[in-house]
C-alpha cells in the first residue's frame, strides 16, 4: 500500500513537472505565431514606431481585406491543386517503392536503398536549371503542372526512407498469416501493408504537405504569369525593391498558414486513431 502511495505521489510530481515543461514549450512554440497574427493587424508605420512586440492599436482588418481582394484566391486554388495532386501521387509512389525495400529479400535491395539515401543529399538549387530546361522543353513552363514533377521527385527520397523504416517495423507474422491464406505480393501490399503503414503515411503527408505548401524556389523559377503563381509568391505584391510592407506580408502568411493547421488536425487525429485500433486487432 505504501509503495503504491509512494508511486502515486511520485507519478503526480512527475506529471506536474512534465506539465510545467510542456506549458513552457507551448509558450515558446506559440509566441512567434501570436506575434505574426498581431502584426498582421497593424499599420506599417504603427508597427515600426511602436515596435513589433506591442499589441496593435485596434483589430484592423483592412490588411486582410486588401489581401483577400487581391490575387489571393487564385494563388490559393493553385496551391491547393498542386498540393493535392503532388501529395497523393507522392504517397502512392513512395509506398510502392518502400514495400519491396522493406519487406522483400533481394540482393539489390540494399544498394537501391543506399542510392535513395544518396538522392536525399542533392542540393535543390543545383537542380533549378535542369528542371527549368525540362519544363521549357515539355511545354509545361509557366503552368502549375510544371511544379508537380519536381515537388514529387524531391520529396520521394526522404519519403521512401521514412516509410521503409516504418514498414520494416511491421511484424512478420501478420504477413505470414496472410501468405498462408494465399495472398499474393501485390494484394499483400494493398490489403495488409498499406493499411498498417498509415501512421508513416500520415507523417509523410504532414511533413511533405507543409513543405510543398511553402515551397518557393521552383514556384518562382517555373512560373511567371500571375495567374499561375502559388501562395508563397503572394507576398511579392508587398515586397518592393527597397522596402516591404511587413504587416501585409504577415496577413498573407497568416492566411497561408491557417489551412495547414486544419490539415494537421484532420490528418493527425484520424490516422493515429485508426492505426491504434488496427494494431489492437492485429
Amino acid at each position, binding site marked *: 500500500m505504501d509503495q503504491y502511495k509512494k508511486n502515486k505521489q511520485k507519478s503526480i510530481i512527475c506529471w506536474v513537472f512534465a506539465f510545467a515543461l510542456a506549458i513552457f514549450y*507551448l509558450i515558446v512554440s506559440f509566441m512567434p505565431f501570436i506575434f505574426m497574427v498581431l502584426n498582421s493587424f497593424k499599420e506599417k508605420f504603427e508597427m515600426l514606431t511602436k515596435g513589433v512586440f506591442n499589441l496593435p492599436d485596434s483589430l484592423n482588418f483592412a490588411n486582410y481585406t486588401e489581401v483577400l481582394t487581391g490575387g489571393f484566391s487564385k494563388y490559393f486554388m493553385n496551391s491547393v491543386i498542386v498540393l493535392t495532386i503532388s501529395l497523393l501521387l507522392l504517397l502512392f509512389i513512395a509506398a510502392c517503392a518502400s514495400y519491396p525495400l522493406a519487406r522483400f529479400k533481394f540482393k539489390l535491395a540494399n544498394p537501391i536503398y543506399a542510392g535513395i539515401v544518396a538522392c536525399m543529399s542533392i542540393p535543390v538549387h543545383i537542380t533549378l536549371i535542369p528542371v527549368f530546361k525540362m519544363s521549357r522543353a515539355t511545354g509545361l513552363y509557366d503552368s502549375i503542372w510544371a511544379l508537380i514533377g519536381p515537388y514529387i521527385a524531391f520529396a520521394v527520397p526522404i519519403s521512401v526512407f521514412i516509410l521503409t523504416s516504418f514498414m520494416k517495423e511491421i511484424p512478420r507474422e501478420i504477413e505470414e498469416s496472410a501468405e498462408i491464406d494465399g495472398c499474393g505480393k501485390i494484394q499483400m501490399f494493398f490489403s495488409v501493408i498499406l493499411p498498417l503503414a498509415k501512421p508513416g503515411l500520415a507523417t509523410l503527408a504532414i511533413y511533405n504537405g507543409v513543405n510543398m505548401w511553402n515551397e518557393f524556389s521552383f514556384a518562382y523559377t517555373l512560373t511567371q504569369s500571375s495567374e499561375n503563381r502559388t501562395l508563397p509568391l503572394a507576398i511579392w505584391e508587398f515586397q518592393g525593391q527597397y522596402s516591404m510592407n511587413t504587416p501585409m506580408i504577415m496577413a498573407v*502568411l497568416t492566411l497561408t498558414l491557417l489551412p495547414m493547421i486544419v490539415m494537421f488536425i484532420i490528418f493527425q487525429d484520424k490516422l493515429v486513431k485508426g492505426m491504434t485500433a488496427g494494431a489492437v486487432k492485429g
Partner: protein
Amino acid sequence: MGGKEISLEKLRQRDTRRVAALFLAPVAILMAIYVIYPIIDTFITSTYQWNGISAGKKFIGIGNWKTLLADSSFWIAFRNNLVIMVLSICIQIPIGLALATFLDFGGKKLTVFKVIWFIPLLMSSVAIGFLFTYALATNGGLVSTISGWFGGGNVDLLGNPKTALLTVIMVICWQFTPFYMVYFMAAFTNIPYDVFEAARIDGATRGQYFWKIAFPLLVPSMKSAAILSMVGSLKYFDLIYVMTGGGPGTSTELMATYMYKQSFSTFNMGYGSAVAGGMFILISMVSLITMKLLNGKEEA
C-alpha cells in the same frame, strides 16, 4: 519432389523480383529525371570555367575541384554544417521524443498541445526570419530585455560571429523539432497496444514502461531520425539565408549558401557546380557511413 521444390523456390524468387521491379519503377524513373540527371549535369558543369549564362564555356578538367579542395571558405562552411548537424541531432531528437512521449501518455486530451507544438514547422521562413530578427535585436530585443532583468547588458547574438551560428541553430531547432515530434508519435503507434497493456498488468510504472519497453522499440526510429536530421542539416539553406545571409562576414556561411552565391550571384557557375558536387559527395558519404555504422551494430 525435391526438384519441384527448388523450382518453386526459384519461381517465388522470380516473382519477388518482378514485383520489386514493378513497385520500384516509378521511383526509379523520377529519380533518373529529377535527381540523377541534374547530378550528372552538375558534375559535367563542374569541369568548366563558366559564368553560368554565356554560350561558350572553357573546359578546365579538374581545375575547379582542385580549387575546391584548397578553398578554406568551403571547408569552413562544411564545418559550420557539421556544427548544425551535431546540435540538431542533440537538440531536436530528444525534445521531439519527449514531446511525443508526453502526448502518447496523455492521450487525446492533449490535442491542443499537439497542435500548438506543431505550429513552428508550419510557419514560413519569411515570418520566422522577421520575428526572430526583432526578438534577437541587441537593443530592445527579447533576449536583451531578459538579460536586463538580471542586470546584464545588451546581448548581440546575431551580429557577433561567435554566437551568430549558434543563435540561428536554436531557431532552426525551434522550427524543426515538431517534425520529430510527429515522427515519434507515429513511431509510438507502431508499438502494439497489448504490449502497453501487458506492461501495465505487470505493474510497471509509466517511467518503467517507457525506459524498459517503449524506448528499445523506438531505437530504430531514432536511428532513422538521426539520419534525416543529418542529411537535412548538411544541406541546410533557408533560415541562414533569410536571417544572416552567411554573415557577419562569412561566419555562418553554409555549403548550400556558398554554392548558391557562387552559382547565382557571382557568376561562377562552374565553381558553384563543383561546390554542389562536393556537397553531394560529402553528404552521401557521411550519411551512408553513419547508416552502415548504426545498422551494423543492430545486426551484431
